[in-house]
């Protein structure tokens, strides 16, 4: 019996669950304009997972990267949810570097 997939699947469920938390908290205090940074970090982790020799670690680094990329596409909708009053709204957000440029880009939403 191969427990690898079940264990990785269970850990991935927790990683996805943590994704909900960081998207909600991250958007509240930082704002949705951080999406390119979250997406880049996720892509970087996915590439990094190629070079991790331990199978469990490689799988978890890859899943974390994918969860970050997915979360980056959720930030825009989460910002709207906060503005609509479905989640607490925090007015003083910490804007990312190059915020004015990022505002001109279309934020991804899948």
């Amino acid at each position: 019996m191969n427990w690898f997939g079940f264990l990785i699947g269970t850990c991935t469920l927790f990683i996805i669950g943590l994704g909900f938390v960081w998207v909600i908290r991250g958007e509240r205090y930082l704002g949705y304009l951080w999406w390119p940074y979250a997406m880049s970090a996720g892509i970087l982790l996915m590439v990094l997972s190629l070079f991790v020799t331990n199978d469990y670690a490689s799988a978890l680094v890859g899943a974390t990267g994918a969860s970050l990329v997915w979360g980056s596409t959720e930030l825009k909708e989460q910002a709207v949810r906060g503005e609509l009053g479905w989640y607490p709204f925090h007015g003083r957000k910490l804007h990312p570097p190059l915020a004015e440029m990022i505002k001109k880009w279309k934020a991804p939403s899948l």
Partner: protein
Amino acid sequence: MELNFIGPACAAATFFGVWLGHVSVRKLEREVERIWIPATLALVLGIGLEFASFQADSLIVSAICGILGVTLLWDALELAVRQPKRVIKGHAPANPNNPRHARILERYPTATTIDWLDRNPRGTPYAADELLSVKDELK
């Protein structure tokens, strides 16, 4: 240096599992009247994939089955419980052509056909009267 493809395989399974699940849950919950049918299918398929993950010899296949299995199990919960709650609260648009949603629209004043999330963030919260006027405009 030897490359380990388990990580990228898990990344792809996680991303596509979450993405396809997210899109399918919204679409199926909106269109299907007897929601228990796709929810049960997702549950059975999820359990099946978890069993397959135990049987697979390859670590990559086992991991992909394990990850897709848990995302399907989560989708079953979303279909049966969480998405209908969003429709009742008005956080997801109801489909008046779906008899189940039509009943929700009749019974719950918070339910709406408006997709509130189909807009760009503006940086300031909406006031209650502003939300009412947006609702009237979109009706």
